[in-house]
């Protein structure tokens, strides 16, 4: 399973390194969301700083769906998905590889947007370790749920619409926990141990569940 995962991950990373489609799309989109927030809400008022973590994750939730949509659309278009499902490998390995690739794309997007975000919203990161953990756990949560639903939505006529419709409501707990932990990292709240725990629980539950059900999604 792990070997399959590494092969799939390496394949997706190589495609991304050559095209830079997923990360650049997510990047431009998150910057756009931040700019639009600025016009819609006049974010430079001091009280807005407390809400900064929320703006950040909203931008990611939507930018994430963009790059997640591509994840399986790519396989469908070239017929590679059929080849993958015919290959005598563990479907869980395919899921793990794709999910890891998506988690990396999300994390890279976050790291690039972070400095812009700090500049635009005038926030300061007071707990760097908390921010790193929040980003890592949040990316895993979005990647696990998003990869599963992206694989499901890729089977439909309305892929672009169905991915967010399925993915966003289910990831509500992860989204709340991600916002709260980031908020803690920015020094807006005093403790966030519950939210870190919830994110870990969400990650464990959804990674496990996705690994178990992915064989049904992958069959043709």
């Amino acid at each position: 399973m792990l070997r399959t995962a590494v092969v799939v991950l390496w394949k997706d990373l190589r495609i991304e390194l050559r095209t830079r489609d997923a990360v650049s799309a997510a990047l431009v989109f998150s910057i756009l969301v931040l700019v639009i927030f600025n016009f819609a809400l006049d974010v430079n008022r001091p009280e807005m700083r407390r809400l900064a973590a929320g703006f950040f994750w909203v931008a990611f939730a939507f930018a994430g769906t963009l790059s997640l949509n591509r994840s399986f659309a790519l396989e469908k278009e070239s017929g590679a998905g059929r080849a993958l499902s015919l290959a005598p490998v563990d479907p869980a390995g395919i899921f793990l590889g794709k999910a890891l690739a998506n988690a990396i794309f999300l994390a890279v997007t976050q790291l690039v947007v972070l400095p812009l975000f700090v500049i635009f919203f005038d926030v300061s990161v007071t707990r760097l370790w908390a921010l790193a953990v929040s980003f890592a756990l949040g990316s895993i949560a979005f990647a696990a749920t998003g990869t599963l639903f992206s694989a499901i939505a890729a089977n439909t006529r309305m892929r672009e619409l169905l991915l967010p419709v399925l993915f966003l409501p289910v990831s509500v707990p992860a989204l709340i926990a991600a916002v709260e932990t980031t908020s803690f990292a920015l020094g807006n709240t005093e403790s966030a141990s519950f939210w870190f725990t919830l994110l870990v629980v969400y990650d464990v539950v959804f990674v496990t569940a996705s690994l178990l059900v992915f064989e049904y999604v992958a069959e043709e």
Partner: protein
Amino acid sequence: MARRSGMILDAALLIAMAAAFGMIFFYAPIESEMGIVQKIFYVHVPLAWNAFLGFGIVFFSSFRYLATRDPKWDMRALSAAEVGVLFTTLVLITGPIWAKPVWGIWWTWDARLTLTLVLWLIYVGYLMLRRYIESPERRAVLAAVVGVTGFIDVPLVYFAIRWWRTQHPQPVIAGGEGSGLDPRMATTLWICVAAFTLLFVALYRRRLAIEAMRARAEALRDDAEAARMEGARS
């Protein structure tokens, strides 16, 4: 046999509904503070409980479908999801009608309200997904995966929203609905729960029957098509 039990069920439903609404309007006392609008609670609460029952059936049936691949479990999941979404929609409509005069606002992001809304979104997504997959087997399998993962998410959503709410200021302070219920109110509520559970079962059975007929019609059409092809060849 099925027809006979269906008729008995319909008769029981009719009687129970008549009794429930009779009790709501003529037996249950008018609540001292909220007034007449409180009576919506007798419809709202049973609808909510049955909606959750429906989503539980979706989870169980989806799980069974993945294990057995028997189309009947898929039909059950679909029927329960549709009735569940219908009931949740009614819950989300009756809630604000009650909340506006009592709390002074239509909506608040309180734990139960938010959970209901998120559940509604998850199962509307489930039903939308089904519409856009052509192959019946693929549709059943993928929907079952969503039916299972969506339900696993419910406790996580619940804890997240609960904790998130307690950290933020509560816009309204209302006593628990169960606190100090007049015995006549409690009796009315239980009769209403029984009536709406019967309504759920009746709708669910009808939806299931439609689905079975649709499957049969499809099979007949396929047979006729095959026979026609056979005739054209000879």
